[in-house]
């Protein structure tokens, strides 16, 4: 009894199986002209067999967009590799409805290797395609929000730097900045150049530790705190001490390094007074080519209870350059090698007869090139030149 049942099943009528298989079948000529179609496909689409066999091509069953895709991608692949798999298209049903399907096709050739017909299997993919459409929407949304986050980061970053540097009268000041990586994350470097009173100017450059939104908030605060305090006191160390207090009070978990330079004109020339809160000291190149640093490195701002900060004053001479920079310069890495102080000094020495902006741009470009074009950290450079 059971044996007989299985035997009968094994001989499942091929004709009947073809017609009512759980997928649609078509056989076409190499150009797509439909020669044979099974009942399943007719039932799914509502088309009448006679209509389809009146010279209709398979690609004509597809909506226009899918048809272009078929002609430009699928047909060439069929001809070149003899098959296609899991092609996602729609079939236009007799009532105009679109049935999402997946298509597998195989080219059947004659003994000479010439394509004779195409066998096509069609699978109803309504559920699957709906799910894929949701995935695609979700992916687009994720991409959009990522793009928005990057745009936000860039906008925020732009507020850390002056849109254009205005050089104090009788001085030449330039600045250059390059964000880390692709610029999609906000870094913590900032600089500013502004007038603090009649004939006195300030140049500040700093680096808030960390990245991302929390660092950005502190960076913004640091830049504006410095601006406000610099109008109240002529002493660079007092400006940095005030920034230290702000950090300790409002952002005890954050710290930053900064160098503040006050510039004013005396009878002997341009006087530069500098204070450093844990930051690299400015490098001076004198007219005779010799290099030195100006000032004393104090304590990192926001870290200790009582900061140790000092002011150092020096007179600049015509032809002198002073270079302020963040550690994105000296700590730039290539494999196991750092850009380091020596390379920076060499780079400053090498560039003769340039303006402040040109020197700043040149240094950033060289650091970037050293890292093969990808900055691991933000790079900021400000150059003061006495013409």
């Amino acid at each position, binding site marked *: 009894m059971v044996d007989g049942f299985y035997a009968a099943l094994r001989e499942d009528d091929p004709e009947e199986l073809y017609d009512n298989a759980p997928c649609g079948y078509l056989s076409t000529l*190499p*150009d*797509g002209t439909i020669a044979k179609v099974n009942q399943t496909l007719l039932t799914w689409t509502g088309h009448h067999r006679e209509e389809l066999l009146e010279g209709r*091509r398979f*690609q*004509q069953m597809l*909506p*226009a*967009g*899918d*048809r*272009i*895709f078929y*002609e*430009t*991608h699928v*047909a*060439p*692949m069929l*001809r*070149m*590799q*003899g*098959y296609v*798999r*899991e*092609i*996602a*298209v729609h079939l236009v049903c007799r009532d105009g409805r679109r049935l999402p399907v*997946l298509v597998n096709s*195989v*080219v059947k*050739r004659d003994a000479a*290797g010439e394509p004779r017909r195409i066998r096509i299997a069609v699978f109803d993919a309504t559920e699957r*395609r709906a799910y*894929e*459409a949701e*995935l*695609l929407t979700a992916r687009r949304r994720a991409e959009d929000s990522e793009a928005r986050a990057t745009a936000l980061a860039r906008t925020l970053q732009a507020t850390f730097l002056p849109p254009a540097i205005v050089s104090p009268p009788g001085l030449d000041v330039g600045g250059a900045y390059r964000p880390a990586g692709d610029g999609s994350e906000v870094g913590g470097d900032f600089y500013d150049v502004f007038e603090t009173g009649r004939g006195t100017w300030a140049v500040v450059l700093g680096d808030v530790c960390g990245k991302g939104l929390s660092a950005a908030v502190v960076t913004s605060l640091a830049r504006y705190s410095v601006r406000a305090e610099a109008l109240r006191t002529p002493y660079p160390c007092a400006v940095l001490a005030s920034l230290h207090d702000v950090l300790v009070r409002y952002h005890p978990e954050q710290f930053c390094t900064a160098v503040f330079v006050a510039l004013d004109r005396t009878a002997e020339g341009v006087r530069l007074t500098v204070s450093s809160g844990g930051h690299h000291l400015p490098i001076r190149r004198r007219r005779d080519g010799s290099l030195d640093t100006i000032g004393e490195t104090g304590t990192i701002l926001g870290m200790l209870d009582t900061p140790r900060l000092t002011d150092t004053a020096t007179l600049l001479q015509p032809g002198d350059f002073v270079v302020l920079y963040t550690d994105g310069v000296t700590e730039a890495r290539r494999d196991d090698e750092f850009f380091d102080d020596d390379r920076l000094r060499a780079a400053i020495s090498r560039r003769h007869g340039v303006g402040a902006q040109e020197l700043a741009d040149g240094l950033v470009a060289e650091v970037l090139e050293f890292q093969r074009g990808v900055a691991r950290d933000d790079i900021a450079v400000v150059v003061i030149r006495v013409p």
Partner: protein
Amino acid sequence: MDAVGADVLVRNNVTVSGNPDGRPMLFAHGFGCDQNMWRFVAPGFEDRYRTVLFDYVGAGGSDLSAYDVERYATLDGYARDVLDVAQALDLRDVVYVGHSVSAMVGVLAAAAAPERFGALVLIGPSPRYIDDEDYVGGFTEDDIQGLLASLDSNYLGWSSAMAPVIMGNADRPELGAELTASFCRTDPEIQRRFARVTFLGDNRQDLGRVAGLPVLVLQCSDDVIAPEAVGRYVHEHLSGSQLVKLSATGHCPNLSAPEETIAAIASFLDGG
């Protein structure tokens, strides 16, 4: 050849064969695939011509890192690829054979540097795919959105099916496994952009810019992408062009009817 020229040959995956002393014949593939589209046609000219095949940046074996969103935002960027290749090899009196969108790319290239071109063969050309008042291009903007959606959904399917699975006629594969894996498949974002440039553009005005050049327009029967009316439009607006209708059907006679395609081009070049 200078360094820049050598870079172009790598960038555009240029393949030169045929008769080194022959007249240069430059084959440009259309939207969708790559220079393999000429696999059955180019060899038909190798005895007499120096055949040059290439992939546009963004297609086939080209250097995808050279893809520049702005440059390739119009067909002019693609025409520059053609001119770059022609310049790198210092080709003169070129027989340019362009399929599909490359027909118009050839028109733009010939208008920009007429001194390099000797004849144009345009297979399935269309200067505008979208209908416009009296002009029938065959498609609506919605259709093109449908194409972009189609590209998207097939990208999803393909990402998991990238490995070359040989089925069916494994004993007679036209392509090696390596090509099978890459044929007609490229960066989906580039493909989307190329689709937009191809199908949303309007180059009808450019047809008037090539004058005095022998042009052959090859029109397929029953081409759903470039219908007969469009082929006739191109022929009527290209002064001195010849229109030849192939009995081959579909949009790719270079694949489906290479012999007929070769014969039509050869007869045109031989002044037939």
